């Protein structure tokens, strides 16, 4: 089983290559291929995670060349957890896409499934790589496949995605130029080797510039507040099965890459601190502004999109504070937010798919029509607000403790304020769902969602509760081994 690290990437990749051929036999085969791709990736991720939790960092030398000459794949507890998270949500999204794709032609289904598998490939590649340039290559794979998938939701989504494409390419170029500066100063691209060689040159202003470029590039990809412009439109018009996955993990993977580079390459704390503090203030604004803008939305999906901007602020806040406690909070929030945002987007898109409604006021009386779906929505919404015993409470708790401990009172205030705002905009929806009379015309089909859609939603809702209840175990067993030593 020494080859599990590469299989995390290879299984979805090879499946993506075979899916166009499977699609010639019919759309069902393409969907089966997608399920196989994601499930295989999940299995290898779990195996790799288990091996890495036993205390040993798995390092896989692709091509048999030792780093820094060859490319290295690194599975430590951190990347193991991330890879498992990504592939787990991918499996659920693959199930979820079933009913949505049923009306499509076989060829289009094949293209869609193939691109979805490539998106998973790209994200997993980013997560497991130990090489800065390799990260760029996989960033582009995931981006290009995401552009295509997100644009399959109609004309408005095409315009939104075109803007996303431009901004995303600028972000990738920023990242690449940052890598170029680092390469000029150290002569290496391997993360571990660079971390060893950076202290020799860490007083050079070039390093500060390199950090800034990499941070800006990845912050654009992660939609941190002033750089979030592409996100709301893209998310609002995106098709259902895609957005449930993309919103859940794509920005998080960029945040993860940022975390990895800041704490494993620059060994934050020894390096320059200014970009980090700047990041902290940007995230404070993100947290508040995201929640405020979410409050102003009438469209539920757009509201969730803005709320994502706020939630990315939490994660960045944790990274910016940079103490072990804050990082625990940030990483826990990456997991929690992926699970609960995935659940929320899947619910909203399911409602839209079934009833064709998307505005807050259209959700009136939905609690009686789609009781199970709305129960899941409620659990995830409560978790977003941060009520115990749901998962969202604990990550916010860690972040708040960390802000208090390191004396960043404005950060703490922003956390509390945005939780209150979150309560307002989610209760606005919940009030409609449970307390208002129905106003969707009776003629529509108003039975529960079909099982392939309902099952992922309920799984995620249960997971939100489990992550909350067993939060202590999760933190000590999975999150804390992933902190930089």
């Amino acid at each position, binding site marked *: 089983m020494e080859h599990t690290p590469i299989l995390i990437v290879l299984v979805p990749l090879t499946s993506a290559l075979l899916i166009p051929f499977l699609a010639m036999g019919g759309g069902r085969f393409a969907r089966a291929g997608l399920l196989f791709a994601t499930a295989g990736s999940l299995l290898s991720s779990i195996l790799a995670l288990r091996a890495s939790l036993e205390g040993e960092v798995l390092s896989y030398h692709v091509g048999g060349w030792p780093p820094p000459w060859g490319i290295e794949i690194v599975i430590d507890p951190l990347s193991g957890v991330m890879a498992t998270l990504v592939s787990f949500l991918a499996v659920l999204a693959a199930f979820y896409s079933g009913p949505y794709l049923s009306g499509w032609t076989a060829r289009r289904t094949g293209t869609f499934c193939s691109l979805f598998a490539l998106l998973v490939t790209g994200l997993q590649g980013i997560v497991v790589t130990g090489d800065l340039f390799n990260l760029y290559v996989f960033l582009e794979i995931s981006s290009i496949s995401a552009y295509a998938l997100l644009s399959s939701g109609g004309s408005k989504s095409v315009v939104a995605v075109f803007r996303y494409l431009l901004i995303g390419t600028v972000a990738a170029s920023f990242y690449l130029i940052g890598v170029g500066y680092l390469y000029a100063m150290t002569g290496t*691209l391997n993360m571990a080797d660079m971390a060893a060689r950076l202290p020799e040159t860490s007083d050079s202003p070039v390093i500060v510039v390199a950090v800034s470029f990499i941070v800006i590039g990845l912050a654009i990809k992660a939609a941190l507040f002033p750089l979030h412009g592409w996100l709301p439109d893209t998310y609002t018009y995106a098709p259902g099965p895609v957005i449930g996955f993309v919103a859940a993990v794509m920005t998080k993977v960029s945040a993860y890459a940022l975390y990895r580079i800041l704490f494993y390459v620059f060994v934050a704390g020894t390096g320059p601190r200014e970009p980090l503090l700047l990041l902290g203030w940007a995230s404070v604004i993100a947290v508040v502004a995201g929640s405020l803008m979410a409050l102003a939305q009438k469209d539920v999906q757009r509201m969730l999109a803005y709320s994502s901007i706020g939630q990315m602020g939490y994660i960045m806040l944790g990274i910016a504070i940079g103490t072990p406690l804050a990082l625990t909070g940030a990483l826990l929030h990456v997991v929690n937010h992926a699970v609960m945002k995935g659940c929320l987007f899947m619910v909203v898109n399911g409602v839209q798919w079934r009833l064709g409604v998307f505005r807050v006021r259209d959700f009136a009386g939905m609690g009686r029509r789609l009781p199970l779906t709305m129960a899941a929505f409620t659990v995830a919404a409560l978790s977003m607000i941060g009520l115990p015993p749901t998962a969202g409470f604990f990550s916010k708790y860690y972040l708040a403790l960390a802000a208090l401990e390191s004396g960043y009172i404005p950060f703490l205030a922003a956390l509390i304020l945005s939780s209150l705002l979150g309560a307002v905009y989610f209760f606005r929806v919940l009030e409609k769902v449970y307390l208002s009379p129905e106003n969707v015309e009776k003629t529509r089909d108003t039975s529960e969602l079909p099982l392939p859609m309902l099952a992922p939603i309920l799984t995620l809702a249960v997971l939100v509760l489990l992550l909350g209840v067993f939060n202590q175990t999760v933190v000590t067993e999975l999150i804390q081994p992933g902190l930089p030593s």
Partner: protein
Amino acid sequence: MEAETLSVVNYWLAASLFLIGLYGILARPHLVRKLMAMNILQVAVIVFFIILGYKSDATPPIVRQGDETPIARNYINPLPHTLMLTAIVVSVSTTGVALALLIRIHRRFGTLDESELIEKLK
């Protein structure tokens, strides 16, 4: 001394290319133009990397006939060249996808001007 000045000038010119690209993306209203600016931005990054790889008094990274033991000093660094091959290919791929999106936008909205497009979306 002269070499150093020239070196800084070259870096600045590469940076200017990058900025021209950034300016085009931010400020030019036509979407095809933005796309061209995006390509210029990517070429700027490529230029920057190629400058990094250059060595004075060295030959291109192909072992000369009869050179049994190549010495690092005599050949230009091949690594940035490899990386930039990737970057070129990535840029043409992105351009292809973007143009496909543009054609769809034009079919649906009949314009590629950003402000007109924003008007039509409302």
